[in-house]
């Protein structure tokens, strides 16, 4: 593609389009930004594809974030980072039981 095409696409480059696209996911674009964004959108097939892919990736993030908590211990075993070390387990266990010993006899609330 050439610089002539760039001029034709009303001053917004593809790179600027990708920046505006990302920003539009985080904040509201101004009227003139939306105008040049939309003009470029109509004229540029590559950026349209880019947008579709970015929006799909946003939905992937939602899906993965939503599934993050639901996972079972078994499914997670062996994933990055592994397990708590034996020392940490021991330490947390003793801290926890000490905390519980001071708490459990108090009235609730």
């Amino acid at each position, binding site marked *: *593609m*050439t*610089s002539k*095409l*760039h001029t034709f696409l009303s001053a917004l*480059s*593809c*790179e*600027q389009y*990708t*920046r505006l696209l*990302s*920003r539009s*996911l*985080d*904040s509201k674009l101004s009227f003139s930004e939306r105008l040049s964004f939309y003009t470029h959108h109509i004229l540029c097939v*590559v*950026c349209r*594809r*880019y947008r*579709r*892919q*970015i*929006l*799909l*990736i*946003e*939905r*992937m*993030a939602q*899906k*993965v*974030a939503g599934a*993050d*908590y639901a*996972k079972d*211990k078994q499914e*997670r*075993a062996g994933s*990055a*980072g592994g*397990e*708590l*070390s034996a020392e*940490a*387990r021991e*330490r*947390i*266990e003793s*801290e*926890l*039981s000490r*905390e*519980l*010993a001071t*708490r*459990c*006899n108090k009235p*609730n*609330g």
Partner: protein
Amino acid sequence: MTARPGNGPPFAQRPMTTKRENSKTGVAAEDPAGWLDDHGAILFQFAFGRLKNRELAEDLVQETMLSAVRSLSSFRADSSIRTWLIGILKNKIIDHLRQTRRAAALGIADADGFEETVLQRDFNRYGIWNRFLSNWAANPEELLEHDQLLAIFKECLEGLPEKARQAYLLKNFDAQESDEICNILGITTSHLWVLLHRARHGLRDCIEKRWSPIEDE
């Protein structure tokens, strides 16, 4: 409603390693003595995934459990104990990021070199695409069902420059407002936009490279 700790024997008298049945749904869900067995691994992996530091992750798991015990009365049975614990852990992680933001601003190279490698490679000097993108997002509903694609997404997320990754996680996984993310990471709004753009652009690039069903037309 929450079970009252007054019912039954005091927690401290129970062996910590006892596995109780119905730990997720049963009456003993709020019994902290079983938390380490039931949720310890998940909490650790969550913290490790966010902070990439074993000792720090272990410390935050400990702090989370202790805080949870202290505020057990605020637990509501309409969420699972695990979701509640992860919520507390998330706040601990955010507090940690907030405390270390100054050090992080100096220490974490924020995407140095990314501009040259990914962003500039994709565009020519006029800012026009250097290449044609293949058309792989035509059926989003279908693609979102591909476990393999979601696994690739996670791998690609791991590979992002650290600061961009933290910004993206706070935004898309923790649903934090932009102002709040800037506050946590100690950055300006325009810097946040740059980081999120890098994250999204980098994710797209990485997924395209790894997702084998994508073929050039």
